């Protein structure tokens, strides 16, 4: 992990609520892996005070850039939208434990809600580079809120879109879609981020089909470096529950172990 200023190459609005930021990471002498995140200082002021965590959306190793896709939620992300190309942004990372992809996997399933796709897109890129195919279910409120469809298709992924607008994003419909995909493809592993409801569904379905699955969790953070114990969640270790830190032991966890309250 390293903290420092990175130059913003672009920071643009991509839909009603979402923005996309590219930074020059050529000065970062650390490998970055999908599932990891950076803790970004959205403003130099004392309010908002704390940094905000954002997953890595795309890694462009040859250009030496990192990309973030973010939802404008409150003051911190609002301030981030005000940062312009040419300015620098104070970034701390890479942080956390990444996703793991096994060499012998042929097809993986990604299921994301909203900005959860920001986290899974980097994984789709990594999978494509390793010759692993991906099927992706993207869920959002509306078609306008559906993100990164083209990016994923660019990585050769089969993309299935579900939205409230189209009335097919409820758990029952998504379960049917999931089962259909599992019939059509031999899925070696599944990954999710962004929705407790969908994660619970995937937990059930992957348990039945005995498919290994991983989840990227979100929790409010203080330090993002494992010292303050703000960001905890419970995981099952055999018969017992263990409290772990999302910023350090996570944000990626085996889905079957996570207690989804």
């Amino acid at each position, binding site marked *: 992990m390293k*903290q420092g200023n990175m130059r913003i190459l672009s920071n643009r609005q991509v839909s009603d609520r979402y923005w996309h930021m590219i930074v020059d990471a050529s000065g970062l002498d650390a490998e970055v892996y999908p599932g990891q995140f950076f803790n970004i200082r959205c403003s130099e002021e004392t*309010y908002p*005070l704390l940094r905000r965590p954002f997953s890595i959306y795309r890694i462009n190793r040859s250009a030496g850039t990192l990309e973030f896709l973010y939802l404008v939620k409150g003051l911190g992300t609002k301030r981030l939208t005000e940062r312009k190309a040419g300015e620098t942004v104070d970034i701390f990372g890479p942080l956390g434990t990444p996703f793991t992809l096994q060499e012998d996997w042929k097809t993986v399933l990604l299921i994301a809600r909203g900005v959860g796709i920001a986290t899974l897109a980097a994984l789709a890129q990594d999978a494509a580079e390793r010759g692993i195919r991906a099927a992706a279910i993207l869920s959002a409120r509306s078609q306008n809120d559906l993100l990164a469809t083209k990016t994923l298709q660019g990585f050769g992924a089969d993309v299935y879109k579900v939205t409230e607008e189209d009335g097919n994003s409820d758990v029952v419909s998504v379960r049917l879609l999931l089962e259909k995909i599992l019939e059509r493809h031999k899925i070696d592993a599944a990954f999710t981020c962004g929705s407790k409801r969908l994660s619970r569904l995937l937990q059930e379905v992957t348990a039945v089909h005995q498919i290994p699955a991983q989840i990227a969790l979100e929790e409010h953070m203080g*330090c993002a470096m*494992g010292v*303050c*114990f*703000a*960001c905890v969640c419970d995981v099952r270790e055999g018969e017992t529950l263990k409290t772990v830190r999302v910023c350090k032991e996570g944000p990626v966890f085996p889905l079957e172990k996570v207690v989804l309250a």
Partner: protein
Amino acid sequence: MISTNKTELDLTVSIGGLTLQNPIMPASGAFGEDMEKVVDFNRLGAVVPKSITKEPRKGNATPRVCETVGGMINSIGIQSKGIAYYLENIVPYYGRYDIPLISSISADSVEEFAEMSEILASRVEVSALELNISCPNLKGNGLAFGMDPEITYRLLQTVRQVTDKPLIAKLSPNVTSIQEIARAADEGGADSLNVANTILAMSIDVHTRKPKIGNVMGGLSGPAVKPIIVRMIYQVRQVSALPIIGCGGVMNGEDAIEMILAGASAVQVGTASFIQPTAMLDILEEIKQYMRQYQITDIKSLVGQVYVQKQKMEEC
């Protein structure tokens, strides 16, 4: 004019029999092993790991932190692996560093404070004990031992009997008179006073109408609390000759100097490290710059040196 270069600066301070190479150390709960990747611990005045409890504790419900203007509220609730783990892992880990290890203790009773103090003080790696008599997250309504002068006195007196190692009492700011509690800790046998722990606070999400942290109330830290803490350092300085460790809202070198001028001999840094992982070392550099700017060679000469005109004080 005599020019002062880096080597001439004397940053050493003494807190209750313990000499530190400089006055900057972390605040308990905002520091841990993982920070070794960003901070060279050997450059700090001391290390202060998170408060330890006797038995393992799970801590409070999430969200455990939320943000307020210029500060944050936390309700971690001393998540702890228990003293056995601490003795086996944490003590030897910090024992490898050249600087003093100050063990922060949290306990449920006076007897338990004494029992844990005796065990920890018996370890050579432990240089001093900080008694966290002030955590607002333990008892249901944010109550702490350090809110009652008699319990504070009895607690210090009991712990004093089991060890000669320096005892730092970490006071609660959630009291009507911090002077009364400071006096009680001093008379009970403390060697140093930490002023102070977090300020009991609450924040509500107006959209969901729910408290923003799982435990309803929590402790406020960060720049918003600094003026309150500076005032308390100044007040405690009036009633006790014990060295004070200032703690609360230090974000930069000037904040640290402000506390020293108010009467602190050393300063702890908490929240600032979350925003700037290298904050403690940056603060140290800024203190040195300040000293060079004003040709101050010995940091100790600044302690309590705020200019206050007596009559003005009495007027208000």
